[in-house]
């Protein structure tokens, strides 16, 4: 039976290198999530503002970002912006910028959805009870919005982690790139290693995302 990659995987530091590659992906998505959640909340709240001009501008920006494939956004920032403005961006910086832009757009849409899912009578009832605007938001609206929002934003983290697989295409060394290097280095001794190595990458991504999805699902059920 020819080696399908298990031997290569256990040889030297290969497994550790793969996990390190996943670490790069996780780091990029963590930074982007931490920045895009507050920004997204801000934009989402602004979207509920009644000013038609800010609303229109925000809407165009958000729709554009959300409708473009993330890969196109990566290309626009990595190749397009560097060419147009003449600055230099490393692949990693470019991907963090893209993930923040994209994450902010997605997050603000979640916030908008959560806010508009609060029935109008909640506002009216609290006004009838004599609560001020600040009190209405602090005691009535925000707690209810958060319950809907937290599971959705946790899901956004897994989406972000999955999307980091794309940064291979702008030359960032992450899990898939490391896998390619390992396969290439062992091409002679085990030509069939691609099967096992890519299976390992598949499982690594699964192990990174699955617990987070389970947590989101659990919270969603609990707070229904």
């Amino acid at each position, binding site marked *: 039976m020819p080696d*399908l*990659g298990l031997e290569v995987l256990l040889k030297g530091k290969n497994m550790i290198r793969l996990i390190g590659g996943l670490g790069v992906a996780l780091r990029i998505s963590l930074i982007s999530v931490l920045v895009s959640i507050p920004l997204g909340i801000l934009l989402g709240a602004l979207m509920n503002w009644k000013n038609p001009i800010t609303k229109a501008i925000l809407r165009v920006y958000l*729709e554009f970002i959300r*409708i*473009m*494939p*993330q*890969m*196109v956004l990566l*290309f*626009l920032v990595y*190749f*397009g912006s560097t*060419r*147009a403005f003449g600055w230099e961006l490393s692949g990693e910086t470019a991907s963090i910028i893209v993930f923040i832009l994209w994450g902010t757009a997605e997050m603000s849409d979640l916030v908008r959805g959560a806010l508009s899912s609060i029935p109008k009578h909640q506002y009216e009832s609290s006004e009838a009870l004599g609560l001020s605007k600040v009190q209405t938001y602090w005691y009535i609206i925000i707690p209810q919005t958060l319950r809907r929002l937290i599971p959705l934003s946790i899901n956004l983290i*897994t989406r972000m982690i*999955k*999307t*980091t*697989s*794309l940064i*291979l*295409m702008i030359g960032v060394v992450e899990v*898939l790139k490391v*896998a390619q290097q390992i*396969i290439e280095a062992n091409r002679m001794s085990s*030509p*069939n*290693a*691609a*099967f*096992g*190595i*890519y*299976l390992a*990458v*598949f499982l690594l*991504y*699964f192990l990174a*995302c*699955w617990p987070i*999805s389970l947590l989101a699902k659990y919270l969603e059920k609990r707070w229904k």
Partner: protein
Amino acid sequence: MNWEFIMKYLPLYEKAAVLTVRIGVMGVVIAIIVGLICAAIQYYKIPVLKHIVGIYIELSRNTPLLVQLFFIYYGLPKIGIRTQADICGVAGLAFLGGSYMAEAFRSGLEAIEPIQAESAMSLGMNRYQMMRYVILPQAMSISIPAFIANVIFLLKETSVFSAISLMDLMFTAKDLIGMYYKTTESLFLLVVFYLIILLPVSIVGSILERRLRYAGFGA
């Protein structure tokens, strides 16, 4: 902006767009079929199969399409399963989309209160009539928003196909940037073509969604 360059390479993009749409549509259609089958298995709680479907859904939802494609395209041939790149693309999209579609359909079916089925039964409907006239119409209007979001999501995901050397829009843009260094023009065409593909779907989707909201019961 060099319009001559744009006109010259427009046909190349058109060809790539056709490929993107063809693989995208095929993948989405198969994903819908897979999703329907999986949702039915989970709804009727068919033993054994229901666990297999559960594992499949978790595996496919928690891994990126690019990794799935690499495994199908570079990994599987090593154990003797060899396919062409475009079939790999369709298979990958169907594998990923099947679980998303299944979840969309399942959440629609689960949102229908048992009282609906019980009432249908007490009116003397048989199982088929109950599904056809009571459960499905309501479940469908609940599933539609998630369904449309999934279609757009899957069409967007086709952008990773260039990684398994399919000559799609991404591939064409990258190629032209590499060959002629006409970054602005290449990227401009890329954005325009993706807008042409995705904008109509998104607009039709939001119209459908608005119309179906009226069809909701008790909402």
